[in-house]
């Protein structure tokens, strides 16, 4: 962990803004800490775009290199995460265009329920997994712009403002695109799935 050492910052990790300032002045190691800090959301985003872990890794590495040289254009006090994710998104989309078309999302639903919350009955757990799988499959068949807005919102947990920054559109566009994507998603789900969701929605 990259930590400051003078009396004002001793013992705490440097803020993004401090690392960016160091990196802007040529401190590659400070930039390495930023890469380490954001490689996880960057990689997940790239997986959603490229549908391939291998392509995603290349896209992330290339995007971080390009971002370093673009730090001079980074606005002070702006959040770093949406900025870097936008660069990753562009790089991943370029790679996806040149790669062969892939089906599916390169993701899977875990067999075990994540820890936290009450354990469902075995029947409910099976139903939940089947619902999740059907949902994942349907998301994978959505057009790219709708698939991405759903993935960014729910899988990466980005805010509307962050999604807008990543996609380079207005927040209102994100809202309407998300609503359209959800409507299309419902239309693509197997019959009967909606009723399962209503039951689960009231469980909680």
């Amino acid at each position: 962990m990259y930590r400051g050492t003078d009396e004002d910052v001793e013992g705490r990790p440097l803020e993004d803004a401090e690392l960016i300032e160091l990196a802007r002045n040529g401190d590659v190691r400070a930039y390495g800490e930023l890469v380490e800090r954001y490689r996880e959301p960057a990689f997940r985003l790239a997986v959603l775009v490229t549908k391939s872990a291998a392509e995603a890794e290349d896209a992330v590495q290339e995007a971080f290199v390009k971002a370093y040289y673009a730090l001079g254009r980074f606005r002070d006090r702006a959040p770093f995460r949406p900025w870097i994710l936008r660069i990753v998104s562009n790089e991943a989309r370029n790679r996806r265009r040149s790669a062969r078309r892939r089906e599916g999302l390169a993701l899977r639903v875990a067999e075990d329920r994540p820890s936290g919350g009450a354990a469902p009955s075995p029947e409910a757990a099976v139903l939940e997994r089947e619902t999740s799988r059907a949902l994942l499959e349907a998301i994978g068949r959505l057009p790219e712009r709708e698939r991405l807005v759903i993935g960014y919102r729910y899988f990466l947990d980005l805010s509307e403002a962050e999604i807008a920054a990543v996609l380079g559109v207005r927040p209102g566009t994100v809202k309407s695109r998300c609503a359209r994507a959800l409507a299309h998603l419902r239309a693509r789900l197997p019959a009967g799935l909606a009723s399962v969701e209503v039951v689960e929605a009231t469980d909680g």
Partner: protein
Amino acid sequence: MAEPSGPDPLEPSLRALAAALEFPPAPKVASAVTARLRADRRARPGGRPPFPGLVAWPRRRLLVLAALGALLVGSAAAAARLAVGAIVIRVVPELPTPRPTISEAGPVLGPLVSLGEAGREAGFPLHLPAGLGHPAEVHLARSAFGYRLVILVWRPDARHPPIPGTPWGTILIELPGTDSPLAIKEVAASATIRTVRVAGARGYWLSGPHELILRMPGGERRLGVTGNVLLWKVGPTTLRLETALERRDAIALARTVG
């Protein structure tokens, strides 16, 4: 299309799906990224950062920077080192003029020996991939610091296409697992360096132009590399596999090493 006024009924299911979703593990790309940036900086006259002008630094920032530099020289330098056993990867802005490939270098790489002899003399366990059969040639060379290195080559076949510029389909170099750098991979900044796992062991995949520098008793020997290269360790042995195969197939081959 009219927008829904409240939360969408699909949201709970999407949240549940997000919680149950398994993404592939995010690769540790920081070392490769910083290695490329350092190489780029070396290529710039005066080693100046790529940003227009240096910011006027407040005193506190300068103190932080100076202290960080001193603090991180030891610990972080080790983390940034790209190496597998006795093989170190060094990223350079660009490679010099093309060098002879390993097959063109021939006798410099040590005398031809039998596989049994190489196994007895190497001083570390030799490992062979399954399915390639008996190697066409085995060389036993003296390396720096009194170590040995073993070079095994196989001819191409239907599943192992020829490595450009060589008569070979597979080249395997085996070295001791020492941390002394016996070989250096000099990689152009434009090449791809990727961390990989081979049967649970961390390794590197290099594709794109690079050179292999072998440290021999008489000095360094530079060789051009035209294939893709996988570096990893098996027990006390460092392995370097050169092939025309793509990464997944090369890793599958490496997994058969026993």
